[in-house]
């Protein structure tokens, strides 16, 4: 294979005197580059982060936090089918399901997502056949205790939105649904289990109910 060699064009050897002045001029040229930026403050690229909160917009596809969108009625689309749980490479998702008392069908009880072990690979979102999950760009998630990074994503336990829509009586619908905010039970962590960890529900986007650290301190041994 013959190919040109773009690097290293043959150069004539430079004499010491010319080399000296060439060297000096190369240094001055370099100083010119930096000076150009010095006198043009418009080239500054620094973002002043907490001040620019209003204008800072994350891309639509930003994969920073997993959420389960709830529609205007407050219904989600999760059926508790465990597909996302299987797809998760490091078991950050635990789906706790239950049997509906009347329909005898499987439905979601708790959807637990561990942000502390999540790698944000997006596979759960991709594999979900009901598009019940979504990644969004809310990046201010820092907490002082890693247990606060365990989220319960569904706000109610019960059938998914399409199944609920079939039930016409609002009272009947209400009876099928149990409120869910937090989860306190076993949370498998890569094969082992930590008992007594309280999961913290953080409703996506709109209502930000954050469990404070006092809540955790009160309950942990």
């Amino acid at each position, binding site marked *: 294979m013959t190919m040109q060699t773009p*690097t290293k064009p043959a150069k004539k050897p430079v004499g010491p005197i010319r080399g000296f002045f060439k060297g000096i001029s190369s240094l001055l040229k370099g100083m010119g580059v930096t000076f150009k930026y010095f006198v043009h403050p418009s080239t500054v690229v620094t973002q002043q982060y907490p001040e620019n909160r209003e204008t800072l917009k994350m891309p639509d596809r930003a994969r920073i936090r997993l959420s389960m969108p709830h529609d205007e009625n407050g219904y989600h689309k999760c059926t508790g089918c465990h597909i996302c749980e299987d797809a998760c490479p490091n078991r950050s998702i635990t789906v706790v399901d239950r049997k509906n008392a009347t329909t005898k069908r499987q439905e979601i009880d708790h959807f637990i997502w561990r942000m502390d072990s999540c790698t944000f690979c997006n596979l759960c979102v991709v594999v979900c056949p009901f598009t019940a999950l979504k990644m969004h760009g809310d990046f201010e998630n820092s907490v002082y205790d890693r247990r606060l990074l365990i989220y319960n994503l569904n706000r109610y336990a019960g059938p998914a939105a399409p199944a609920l829509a079939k039930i016409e009586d609002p009272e009947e619908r209400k009876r099928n649904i149990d409120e869910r905010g937090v989860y306190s039970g076993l949370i498998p962590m890569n094969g082992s289990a930590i008992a007594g960890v309280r999961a913290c529900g953080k409703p996506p986007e709109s209502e930000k109910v954050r469990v404070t650290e006092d809540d955790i301190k009160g309950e942990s041994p």
Partner: protein
Amino acid sequence: MTIAIRTLEDLTRPSATPDSPLATQEYFVNMGPQHPSTHGVLKLLLKLDGETVREVIPVLGYVHRGMEKVGEHLGYRQFVHMSDRMDYLSALMNNWAVSRAVETAMKIETNERIETIRTIMAELQRIQSHQLWWGVFGMDLGAFTPFLYGFRDREHVTDILEKTTGARLTMNYIQPGGLMFDLHPDFQKEVKEFIAYFRPKLKEYETLFSENVIVHKRVKGVGVLDAKTAISIGTTGPVLRASGVDYDLRKREPYGMYSKVKFEVALGTTGDTWDRYQVRIEEMKQSLSIIEQLIDNIPEGKTMLMKPGAKIKPPEGISYSHMETARGVLGIMLVSDGKDHRPYRIHLRTPNYNNIWSITHTAPGWRIADLVAILSSLDIVVPDMDR
């Protein structure tokens, strides 16, 4: 026959006291794992004679995460996102390498749209990686400003990639059988803007740094790696090409759309640090031209050919496929027993693990400052080395 297993201690016994009182005694210094120019947690055990390096012993494994063992426990699709975490500066190329390995094993043909997008993404990532390298190289030579200029320009690529892939570093975008998402509608426009922005910046890189007489003094003729040794000692990528070996998998075994675009393989002549520098600068230019050729010609088509939830179960046997990442050849050896949806064994031949050893050949005889320059010119990423 008994085979002696050595330990690091065996190598670091202090040398005998010198015969003449004027001769200096050689001594050992740990360079790393916490050292500004070992780019993470690489440790180099140096045997020094004053300022001169006599021997370099790389000590690896500070970020060893057992990727290959983990790989035996993950599905093929799940393993793709692990590859992000090896060479995080060419995450998309690693994704592609794993996906291509799976596709080769499964004998899946992808369409042109997927391959074109993959090629553009890979080249963007190559530029991004080299931008960061350029900055870091400058910093290792003692100039701090190139570091920030490199990062400033890298930010543009990162923003473009983030818009489409949703992540800035560990993208997990290229999947076996296609892509995770389609392109973002703004992608083509932004890439064109970036090319227009970056061309003049590359010239500026040269005025600021490449033409600087101090840089020439520091890197020309330093750390020469001749072609024969370079091949034998396992280097690939820009390091090997700087030694004048025309080995670029994009040309040799074209994958993606590389057979359909025009580009030149940047080659060095002597294999010194300056050549490695020049090769990478030239590669950025070539990548820009590759992207330019492809960006307006993205054909229509599906972007995912497999059901995202489908289990992948390749037929029994070994399959090896490799690909040119920003640092060299990433080879993925998949061994399937044909029964499980997880690989029986996955071997990762990473470019950095094979490149780093060349420093034991090139650095001795040079000074500490040169060692830093040579190490930087290898463009190491430690997690890729340690897996």
